[in-house]
């Protein structure tokens, strides 16, 4: 009995009218946790009841505390018939179980009904008293912190990164149980919502246990997904990166008071010093860790990982690093030996962590779903993922890498066919974060390599390249070899040398498929996949060249399967890495150059392409410093003038294909336009319309070349569903799909035009084929305004002052990009740069055109115009520009179902979904506010399943969202009122004073 949960129902407001006769409601509340239920009194005849109940107390195991949500049901009392339910609130109490997160949940939460949507609000108070648990064999993992953020959270430092954690739980889907035939849609929806809540709780607890066994205290980059397998069940799975995190107190004032509550970390002062203004390299919380700050966690704990992987034993323990050395330029880190899967869900790393990047590795597998007979033994699903992860691992090895970063997993299900996909970036990591072993080899290595280009250097052996690639000497340091292009799934490292700005690059593909059943269907899909993937890759490469860029970050390839087609969408952010060679152009040629008009046609096309490349170079400010080989005298091969497209690429297997950097043989590529595919390629290349003036876009966290964000941010979700005509050819489909994405982007630019100049960051496209002839595209992103006048030179120093901004400034890039005569400015006196910073700060206030940007301070948030609704910001990024996150309050993971049988009355499908998404946002905001937060970071909409039946006037939608609830303060306020904010927000630090 290690925990006591207490809940108090204060009041309700805006309740719906439940009694037509009186136009009022006699409301009461049921509070349920596990199998215990309490009730409040009936508050008669009011739409704004004041229950002011006693504290309802639940004495429960902490295991239950983790698994179960607190369920609050608001009902209308009816003397003669059954009480009518008004709606429910599920409260995830997990944030209360961690001492560093929230302490109380208090506020107005929307009362939600799956048929009617939000029906008023209820004010509740929830607290948890936890008793110390001394049970060594406990099943709970209270206190393990979870973060959706795929980097080390802002107010923590990573003491140790333990590695990959995964788990999955399965159950029968209530929607497909026999009882569903006799119960109401509402009951069925609620059963599903509750089940998924329970399963996520259980999953999180189990992952937490694994983390504890590994010796960690947190999961970063926690990614939880649902597979709605229909008849065969419901799978909830999650992956993440186990870490040991340590909180950094962010206030300089407290620097003299080391956090005594964490005894073993007595080396905190350097950390504070780095945070102080003006000191170089103070780039926000993920500060460059120094060797002495690592506390000594015994690596033997990590060994226990294998015994802990309860149900995933495939006895595929990796071999020792022996044969790995074959590829590696540096000795493999020791952690490979004990890590079954050296995978990291992180996409951004503390400086010095990522040594080299090999390239993208991905694996796919087509499976036939069968019914899960015993939910307690989810072996089949586990085995499937095992296979894929092994595949990924071997791909990474082939690239000479011992780790995979930016790792993610996804599925696409259509009827009984399921495509499992995994992808990541093969990389060589520094072992500094893995354990406190000898650091000499790495250290020696790092000293030689400049951080701005080091990660581009090939990790594989030059003489033993796993695929044909063009290698040149690094254009930055000229010492190590680099590839001609680099594809990755991670964010652009902050220290990377980049020329110009980046942009969103998408490859879109649609392929028809014959209708088939069972195994035949799976085989058909399997045989199509490699082609699909290959063509996506080709498209990406061409579009990259067309923009004059040489590297892709944040690459995400989504393949969606429908009954009669396959959709592929690859999104990434293209950049020009200074270290890599300049990309060649694209040359096209006819296969049979016979008549003159044909020749002319080709030459006009060629001209168009060349013009576009030039235009793009100007647009993205790509003007790399002239290559001055002769002067330096380095043995750099002649820059190639054109790209080569390699069309006879062989896939490793039907099921699994590897994306690599190979772009063919050494001979020059000629794009032949007799080839229908090539015509299509060229068409696709040239139809991508450029972003309107003032707009930039990327799918990564940050945009290279833009630093001075204003505080104006606007997160949004846009969903479109298109109905296709029957009997379309591949080309027709392609065109439609491509136009669809383009038009969606155009609409977004138009919508957000008042924010110009602005960048759409973290543009996350999700495609689905909900029905035979429907394509659904959902986008979630954040638009962020920036100041046009870039404080180019002093940016370096202002960046250091503004901690968060500095994080995203490729500091080292400065010297690489700007002519040397500007470099003297970087040694400006701090006072001058401060003044410059202030002037930009004042100009951004008036420049913020959108409401959210109105420089609203935390204080004014709390008390504007007497409204009780606090402003909550939402962003898919891990940070808020111009603000500092001072506390993480816990993970937000919510699942909602909405159904209607009066679709027309609710404004049709658009009206229905519009309302639902707005309601989901509202509920997320309300829960964050109740936790005491004012923002959600790393927000994502992981699932949006929409089904309609217009003939029956019905529709149903499922949405799953997640993110991290945080408290942030404006940097301006932090400086001016550091004392106030400190007392207001840091209970912990006060306690230690």
């Amino acid at each position, binding site marked *: 009995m290690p925990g006591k949960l207490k809940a108090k129902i204060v009041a309700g407001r805006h309740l719906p009218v439940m009694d037509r006769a009186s136009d009022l409601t006699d409301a009461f509340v049921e509070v349920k946790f596990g199998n215990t239920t309490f009730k409040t009194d009936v508050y008669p005849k009011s739409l704004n009841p004041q229950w002011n109940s006693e504290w309802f107390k639940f004495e429960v195991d902490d295991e239950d505390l983790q698994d179960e949500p607190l369920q609050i049901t608001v009902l209308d009392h009816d003397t003669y018939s059954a009480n009518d339910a008004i709606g429910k609130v599920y409260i995830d109490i997990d944030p209360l179980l961690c001492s560093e997160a929230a302490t109380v949940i208090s506020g107005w939460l929307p009362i939600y009904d799956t048929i009617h949507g939000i029906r008023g609000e209820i004010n509740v108070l929830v607290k948890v008293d936890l008793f110390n648990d001394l049970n060594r064999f406990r099943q709970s993992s209270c206190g393990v912190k979870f973060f959706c953020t795929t980097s080390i959270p802002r107010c923590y430092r990573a003491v140790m990164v333990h590695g990959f954690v995964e788990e999955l739980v399965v159950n029968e889907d209530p929607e497909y149980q026999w009882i569903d035939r006799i119960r109401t849609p509402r009951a069925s929806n609620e059963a599903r919502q509750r089940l998924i809540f329970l399963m996520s709780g259980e999953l999180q607890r189990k992952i937490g246990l694994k983390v504890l066994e590994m010796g960690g205290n947190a999961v970063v980059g926690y990614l939880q997904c649902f597979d709605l397998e229909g008849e065969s069940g419901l799978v909830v799975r999650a992956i993440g990166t186990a870490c040991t995190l340590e909180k950094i107190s962010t206030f300089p004032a407290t620097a003299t008071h080391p956090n005594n509550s964490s005894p073993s970390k007595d080396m905190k002062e350097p950390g504070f010093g780095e945070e102080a203004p003006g000191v170089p390299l103070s780039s926000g919380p993920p500060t460059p860790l120094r060797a002495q700050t690592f506390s000594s966690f015994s690596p033997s704990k990590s060994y226990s990982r294998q015994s802990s992987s309860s149900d995933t034993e495939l006895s595929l323990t990796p071999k020792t690093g022996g044969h790995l050395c074959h590829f590696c330029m540096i000795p493999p880190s020791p952690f490979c030996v004990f890590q079954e899967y050296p995978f990291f869900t992180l996409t951004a790393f503390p400086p010095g962590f990522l040594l080299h990047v090999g390239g993208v590795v991905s694996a796919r597998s087509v499976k036939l779903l069968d019914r899960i007979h015993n939910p307690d033994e989810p072996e089949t699903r586990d085995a499937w993922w095992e296979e894929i992860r092994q595949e990924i691992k071997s791909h990474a090895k082939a690239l000479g890498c011992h780790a995979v970063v930016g790792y993610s997993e996804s599925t696409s299900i259509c009827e009984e066919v399921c495509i499992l996909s995994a992808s990541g970036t093969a990389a060589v990591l520094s072992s500094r974060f893995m354990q406190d072993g000898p650091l000499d080899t790495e250290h020696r290595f790092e000293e030689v390599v400049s951080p701005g280009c080091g990660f581009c250097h090939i990790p594989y052996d030059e003489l033993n390249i796993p695929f044909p690639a063009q290698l040149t000497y690094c254009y930055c340091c000229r010492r190590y070899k680099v590839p001609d292009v680099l594809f990755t799934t991670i964010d652009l490292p902050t220290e990377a040398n980049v020329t110009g700005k980046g942009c969103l690059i998408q490859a879109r593909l649609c392929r028809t498929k014959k209708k088939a059943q069972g195994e035949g269907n799976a085989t058909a899909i399997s045989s199509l996949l490699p082609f699909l993937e290959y063509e996506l890759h080709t498209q990406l490469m061409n579009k990259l060249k067309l923009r004059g860029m040489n590297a892709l970050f944040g690459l995400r390839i989504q393949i969606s399967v429908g009954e009669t087609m396959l959709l592929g969408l690859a999104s990434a952010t293209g950049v020009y890495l200074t270290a890599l060679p300049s990309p060649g152009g694209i040359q096209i040629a006819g296969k049979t150059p016979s008549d003159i008009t044909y020749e002319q046609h080709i030459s006009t096309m060629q001209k168009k392409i060349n013009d576009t490349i030039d235009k793009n170079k100007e647009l993205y400010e790509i003007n790399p410093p002239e290559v001055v080989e002769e002067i330096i005298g380095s043995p750099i091969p002649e820059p190639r003038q054109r790209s080569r497209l390699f069309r006879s690429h062989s896939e490793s297997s039907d099921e699994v294909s590897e994306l690599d950097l190979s772009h063919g043989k050494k001979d020059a590529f000629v794009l032949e336009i007799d080839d229908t595919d090539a015509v299509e390629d060229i068409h696709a290349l040239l139809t991508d319309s450029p972003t309107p003036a003032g707009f930039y876009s990327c799918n990564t966290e940050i945009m290279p070349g833009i630093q001075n964000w204003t505080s104006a941010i606007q997160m949004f979700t846009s969903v479109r569903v298109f109905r296709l005509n029957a009997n379309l050819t591949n080309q027709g489909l392609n065109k439609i799909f491509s136009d669809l994405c383009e038009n969606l982007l155009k*609409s977004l630019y*138009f919508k957000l035009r008042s924010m110009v100049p602005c960048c759409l960051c973290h543009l996350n496209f999700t495609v689905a084929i909900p029905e035979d002839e429907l394509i659904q595209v959902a986008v979630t992103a954040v638009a962020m305004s920036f100041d046009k006048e870039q404080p180019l030179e002093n940016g370096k120093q202002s960046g250091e002052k503004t901690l968060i901004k500095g994080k995203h400034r490729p500091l080292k890039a400065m010297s690489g990009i700007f002519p040397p005569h500007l470099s003297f400015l970087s040694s400006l006196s701090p006072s001058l740069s401060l003044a410059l910073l202030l002037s930009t700060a004042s100009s951004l206030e008036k420049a913020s055109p959108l409401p*959210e940007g109105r420089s609203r301070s935390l204080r004014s948030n709390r008390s504007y115009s007497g409204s009780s609704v606090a402003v909550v910001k939402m962003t898919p990024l891990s940070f808020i520009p111009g603000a500092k996150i001072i506390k993480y309050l816990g993970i937000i993971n919510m699942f909602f179902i909405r159904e209607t049988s009066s679709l027309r009355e609710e404004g049709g499908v658009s009206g229905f979904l519009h309302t639902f998404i707005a309601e989901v946002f509202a509920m997320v905001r309300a829960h964050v506010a109740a936790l005491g937060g004012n923002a959600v970071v790393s927000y994502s909409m992981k699932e949006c399943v929409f089904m309609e039946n217009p003939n029956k006037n019905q529709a149903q939608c499922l949405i799953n969202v997640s993110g991290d609830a945080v408290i942030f303060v404006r940097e301006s306020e932090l400086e001016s009122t550091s004392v106030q904010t400190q007392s207001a927000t840091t209970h912990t630090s006060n306690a230690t004073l």
Partner: protein
Amino acid sequence: MSVELDVFVGNTTIMDKEVYQLWLNGYTVNDAVKVRIEGGVMEECEASAEVLLSDTMDQYRTFQMCERLLHHPAKLANQLLFQIPPDRQAMLIERYYAFDDSFVREVLGKKLSKGTKKDLDDVSTKTGITLKSCRRQFDNFKRVFKVVEELKGPLVENIRQHFLLPDQLARDYAAIVFFANNRFETGKKKLQYLTFQDFAFCAGQLINNWTLGAVDNMMEDMDVDLDKEFLQDLKDLKILITDKDLLDQHKSRVNNETSHPLSLVCNALRGKTNVFNEMEANFKNLSRGLVNIAAKLINAKDVRDFFIDLVEKFIEPCRSDKWTSIDMNLYLTHYTNSAHILDTFKHHAVWTRYMGVIKSCILRMYHD
């Protein structure tokens, strides 16, 4: 290929002022798109008609979803569904409750009933305002009317607090409510030259001086109904025209005052002998007119005719005699003041309360 579903939801609700206005004006989506295209927004933002259509539909949907909140503006600040910054909320409310002067002239003083609502299509044809917009404006009037009907306290303040309207708009609504409640006739041909603002000004005068609220400020309906006691007392003013002596005395006083040699303005007036003579000749008629209006106000039916009476009995005769506003002001000032010096006239308080309003109303209404 067709777009089956198309939504955009921002964490901060995005609302375009221009589209909002088109929506309020009752344009259909297609008409709104046409107007926007003509406005040149496409060239500005490199957008296509398709994009514009999608945006317009989306905005219209957002406004429709917000509309029920706008019916109770206080709710807008407390709801959780849309995150709208306070200044945007104020803009939404203000524009939603804004109305067309030409529309309000059509329904001013009419009963805000279903019957009137049914006639809105005629109003729409006449004014060129879309029926949808007419309905919104009418419903706004009715909603405000219903809410303040049952409230105590000052009318303008109640409207401002309940509907979060800016001061001027709240005053206008007070006028509309006041007119609807007293059913003042404003539609007659002779009154057509008057604008809504003329009437709103008069309503303000009446509310501030003739209602119960002018004497006691914590009564129900205090600002909506005229002070019955005062109306009763007005009957006593009849003595000014029924008593022959008093009438003559009053006339000569006014003449003396206006012809007083020390008054520069009067000299100027006297210079216009024509006007002056007319005034002298008409005194009895004009005075009779004003006092009769006062005496009849106790009857609800005559209250309705208040403005038409003012025009017929006073403004028209003066206009036909080509008085200027200055003449009018001077005349009314002396007419009011000289009554106080009359020996047998006792009803000074009522007379001041009555004439104060009459004077400012007439001055406001005296134009072409």
